[in-house]
């Protein structure tokens, strides 16, 4: 599920800007660490809006300050830029939070109840509900709102949408902000499950197979790919051991690239000379 939501953030940015964001996992990590700080200092009612405000700020700064100058540059520049951003966030986190695991406060009521013969904790239910909520909201946003339509147009062709009066740069900003906000919201739940520490950012890289399997441009694909990779990884760990399990997402990734490179829901691109 977490894979799915990280993948969702990556897909959101890729759809409109054609930039693959390697730093999505690092955004998640920053989200966990920042929200940890806020929740420990303030009441939860103040902390959550603060976290979302931070996400807005970071998303906007990243797009405006760092990605904007690279429009029109080759693919590798943008890729490397997100990697550089990733390591910048890593460095900041290392300095201020160190590399230890910090316990994350249990900020929502936790109880478990039986559900179809298995015990389900309310944390899992909350996570799934919020994820589903984000997904439905996004679907509505893309189908119904003007901005959502502008985003889909931008995804098709930057030049055409620019000439139709869509502010492409604003669409880009919004995409990055949305991706950051999703990462930060998920961080609130993710932190409770696994605790706060720097190496959370690793999950960002592990979410990449989910993006590719789902298809680079498909939001539904990101969620399904995330679920698929997550479940397969757990199954592989259980039946084949931790060794195979830890690299299983990437084995799936290799197979996916060879067999169906554009994913389950993606569209191949047609290149002309």
């Amino acid at each position, binding site marked *: 599920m977490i894979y799915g939501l990280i993948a969702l953030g990556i897909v959101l940015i890729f759809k409109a800007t054609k930039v*693959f964001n390697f730093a999505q996992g690092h955004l998640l990590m920053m989200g966990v660490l920042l929200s940890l700080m806020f929740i420990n200092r303030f009441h939860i009612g103040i902390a959550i809006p603060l976290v979302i405000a931070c996400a807005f700020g970071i998303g906007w700064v990243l797009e405006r300050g*760092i990605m904007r*100058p*690279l429009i029109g*540059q080759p*693919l*590798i*520049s943008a*890729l*490397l*830029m997100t*990697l*550089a*951003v*990733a*390591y*910048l966030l*890593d*460095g*900041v*986190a*290392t*300095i*201020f939070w*160190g*590399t230890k695991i910090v316990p994350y406060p249990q900020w929502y009521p936790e109880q478990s109840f039986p559900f179809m013969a298995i015990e389900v904790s309310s944390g899992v239910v909350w996570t799934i509900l919020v994820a589903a909520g984000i997904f439905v909201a996004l679907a509505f946003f893309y189908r119904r709102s003007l901005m959502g339509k502008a985003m889909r147009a931008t995804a098709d062709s930057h030049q055409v949408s620019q000439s139709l009066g869509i502010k492409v740069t604003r669409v880009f900003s919004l995409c990055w902000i949305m991706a950051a906000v999703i990462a930060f919201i998920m961080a609130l739940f993710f932190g409770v499950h696994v605790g706060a520490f720097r190496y959370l950012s690793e999950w960002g*890289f592990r979410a*990449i*197979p989910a993006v*590719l399997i789902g298809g680079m441009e498909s939001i539904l694909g990101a969620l399904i790919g995330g679920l698929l990779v997550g479940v397969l990884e757990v199954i592989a760990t259980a039946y084949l051991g*931790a*060794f195979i399990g*830890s*690299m299983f*997402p*990437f*084995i799936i*990734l*290799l197979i996916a*690239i*060879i067999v169906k*490179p554009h994913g389950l829901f993606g569209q191949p691109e047609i*290149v*002309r*000379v």
Partner: protein
Amino acid sequence: MDVNYRQSVAMLRTRSQWIALGVLLAFLAVAGRVFPSEIVDVMNMMFILIVAAHGLNILTGYCGQISVGHAAFKGTGAYTAAMLIVRLGWNHWVALPVAALAAGGAGVAFGLPAFRVGGFYLAMSTLAAQFILPALFLFAMPGIVGGISGITVPRPAIGDFSFRIPENQYYLFMPMCVVMTIVARNIARSRTGRAFVAVRDNEPAATIMGINPFGYKLRAFFIGCLFAGVAGWMRVVYDGCVRPDIYPLMGSIWMLGIIIIGGMGTTIGPIFGVILVRALNEMVLMLSPFIGGFFRPEIAIQMGAGLGLIVFAVVVIVFLVFEPRGLAHLWQVFNERMRHWPFKYEPG
């Protein structure tokens, strides 16, 4: 100027270039004995990185195939060498070409998806390599591969000249680096190198001109990872051991950053990049206790590691935004300026 063909294809065309090269080689020849041991050690590390960076530069800079798995391919070379030397008792010098070939083979294996997809998807396949190969080093057959503690490898020696101390290693790494640089330059300006550039710049157009993009991409993967394998062998000699944690994802990204900073698609670029990045890194390591003094002690401990990451990331960002062609381009501009001096230089 009366220029014949031999002169115009020569790598060094003017007398001043020959003199500059002579001075540089003379400097390199004595540097290993003149400088203190710590500096020689840093230079050794630079030589290893330069060889690896040449490989990545051929793959990414010339052929345009982004690889985020270069450290893993380097590790493949290192592990092959270590296993051959320790488990099978091979000679170090025999193990070198085999290690290089093994890394090249691994590169081709992970480059195979290029048959169906290009550019960005291929980068994903190398990312898979970066996660799968180190996991193999760590988990596969600990009796042979060494598990978490790795393999301890004895240093090679020629007669009584043992490559145990940095001053002596210098005279192994420096010539290797010089040779590999010449090889890299010659690959880049051969038919193969020009085909790489054609594939990078416009793949469909390259196909129409009779270049098989798939074949050349695989060739680029093979050559690039061959260099990585050589660098891996050098690293084994440098460390005297192999361990899974020497070849992390971070290493691959450092390599990418180095060729960006140096300037992709130039042979001089990786050299500049390595020197700048390593020098900055050493400076950060020296300065971080000082800067850490201004902060709380629990923050100060992590200062070195964190600051290293931040400085590296910021330098890469600055170069991407302000000079995507890297130090090599600045060097070219500087040269042109000097050539026209004292007249004004008009960039063409």
